[in-house]
């Protein structure tokens, strides 16, 4: 069981890193810092996927790790950098809730996840157990970030952080078929292209990326 213990510790460590990066996302005040943190989170995710591939002896997880590494940790951050430069978006993050409160909410969400997941997975593999709690925290924190940030770019980052959490959960689930990874990659891909289209279109029409301005119409005013 020695090897099991080590694999558990490492997985736990990497998972915790993903979560820490998620929490870090919450308190970044500058746009580029947010993107960089996100890249770091994706990197950690790639590491987690790689480690799971190794531990579970599931080679297809390396693919997932690769996608995370190349796509999320490199292409997406670069694209976002480029987008911000090109569109001349305001560089600071506009928050809807103070950073302190956001952090506290984030911590509360982590606590909730642990409270929920740990008791119910008593008979699941230990490896899965911890990762699942971590993944759930990441998902919730990603959602929290989408709520507390006004800027469209930060919202997108929040959304992708949420997806990171999902992938973390997926890779930690032992023996989950490949279908899932394909779907995840696929959705991320499509999501990105869509986002790109949207950004351009929003740019064309409203000259801003602040969602509050986009939504002046909001349907059916009388």
């Amino acid at each position, binding site marked *: 069981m020695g090897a099991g213990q080590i694999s558990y510790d490492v997985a736990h460590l990497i998972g915790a890193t993903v979560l820490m990066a998620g929490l870090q996302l919450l308190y970044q005040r500058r746009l580029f810092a947010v993107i960089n943190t996100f890249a770091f989170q994706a990197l950690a995710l790639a590491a987690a996927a790689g480690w799971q591939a190794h531990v579970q002896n599931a080679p297809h997880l390396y693919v997932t790790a690769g996608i995370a590494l190349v796509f999320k940790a490199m292409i997406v951050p670069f694209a976002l950098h480029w987008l911000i430069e090109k569109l001349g978006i305001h560089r600071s993050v506009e928050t809807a809730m103070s950073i302190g409160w956001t952090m506290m909410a984030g911590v509360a969400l982590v606590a909730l996840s642990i409270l*929920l*997941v740990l*008791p*119910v*997975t008593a*008979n*699941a593999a230990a490896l*899965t157990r911890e990762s*699942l709690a971590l*993944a*759930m925290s990441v*998902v919730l924190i990603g*959602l929290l970030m*989408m709520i507390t940030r006004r800027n469209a770019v930060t*919202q997108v980052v929040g*959304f992708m952080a*949420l*997806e990171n*959490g*999902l992938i973390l*959960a*997926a890779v930690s*689930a*032992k*023996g*989950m*078929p*490949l*279908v*899932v990874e*394909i*779907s*995840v990659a*696929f*959705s991320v891909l*499509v*999501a990105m292209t*869509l986002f790109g289209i*949207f950004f351009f*279109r*929003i740019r064309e*029409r409203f000259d801003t990326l602040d969602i509050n301005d*986009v*939504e002046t*119409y*909001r*349907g*059916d005013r*009388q």
Partner: protein
Amino acid sequence: MIDRLTGLPGLENPLLWILAVPLGAAGFLAVLRDWRVASWVNVAASALTFIASLVLLRVRPAPTKLFFIDDFNVYLVVLTAFVGLTTSVFSAAYIARESEGNRLSDLHLRFYHAMYQAFLFTMLLALSANNTGVMWVAVEAATLTTVLMVSLYRTREAIEAAWKYFILCSVGIGLALFGTILVYLAAQPVMGDGADSMAWTEMMRRAAEFQPDLLNLAFVFVLVGYGTKVGLAPLHAWLPDAHAEGPTPISAVLSGLLLNVALYALLRFKMLLSANGQTLSPGPLLVVMGLSSLFLSAFMLYRRGDIKRLFAYSSIEHMGLITFAFGMGGPLANFAGLLHMTMHSLTKSAIFFAVGIISQNEGTKRIADIRGLTMSHPVLGWGFVLAVLAIAGLPPMGVFMSEFLVLGSTFSRQPLLALPLAIALLLAFGALISRLQMMAFGEPPPRSAVQSHAGRASSILALTPLWLHMALVLMAGLYLPAPLVAWFHTVARMLG
């Protein structure tokens, strides 16, 4: 890789045709230039799909690893193919009228037709998938295709609606994935690694051994996730705007089909829970969400000035009612919920057909500008009246039967829950009727009398699906075919 692909059906299997035809048609339509031909190819492909789906009524293919047909999804597949067909007919008429006004470029139209078939494909895929993962992918893909179609007009409102739709549904679908993973985790210790632990057929067999607490947790995520797609309040926000701003045929399939598909996914998970038997009851959560949807939409209906949003909110109302019914559970309420799904999808798409023609005729979507439809366009107007009366729950249409069962069974079991239900239904009823009277009766505005010959031809084409749907709904209100009843009963039992 190969062994997973063996899950695909063979040539003799109708499922293959049901899935392959729309997929192939989507590809073909993407390269087809002439939109007039394209709209008929669209109809032909939908007709083929529908015919293939009819075969399912006779032959039930054995479940494979990826696909299966049982009592639950068989009628949904047929229904989806049918509404897909009628909507494609309506769409042909609609697009012909629309292109007269040059609102859409050829490229847009090509894109539209391709996406229409792709959308049908994803829905049929989601319905027939035997794998939670595949189902999830299909629902996600359905979202993406419809997002693109909602933003087709490229107006400010359309883009805003699409954006809202996209963000909310992506988050929702993400949460649903998390729920899916949790279910896998619950299944995996019992059934081992691999695709078996995600197959409905296998999971249902051994659900009783699953870890109930994990299933509880999973269901919360699935409920919020797929519930967003169903449009349950307070997760509904995307629905009215997406319905209102896209082309009307898309509103019809969104309301009539996509919501059903999302609900279907949700119900599959609920079946798992009830097969397990030791979980917390999902009923209260469903009941609360159903009621909140009902009340929210009932009040919202009173303030709607846009005809398509009005009926979009009415869809939320009905989804709330269906969710409520399944939340109550029991053979009667479940039966009613299933029936209501069918009736709502037929009726609501019929309403959107009518709404499409109306807004094209009158050149407006504002309710306040629409008057005297039964006078200016009798066939359309009365069809519209009939459809709205049906959706408002008046007999002898089918919706009445399901509302009767839901309310009746709830009153006998939980009178205190039935009271708010009845109040909400009454509120919504009042709002719908007052809007209906405003639009259908009174002195019609002086314009809108002239209609081109082509316009009349296309409106006959557009009216056929409307009346066809209403005939079916009327028939169902009086007489339900025995096989359908048998399916409903089986599913109602499975739903617990």
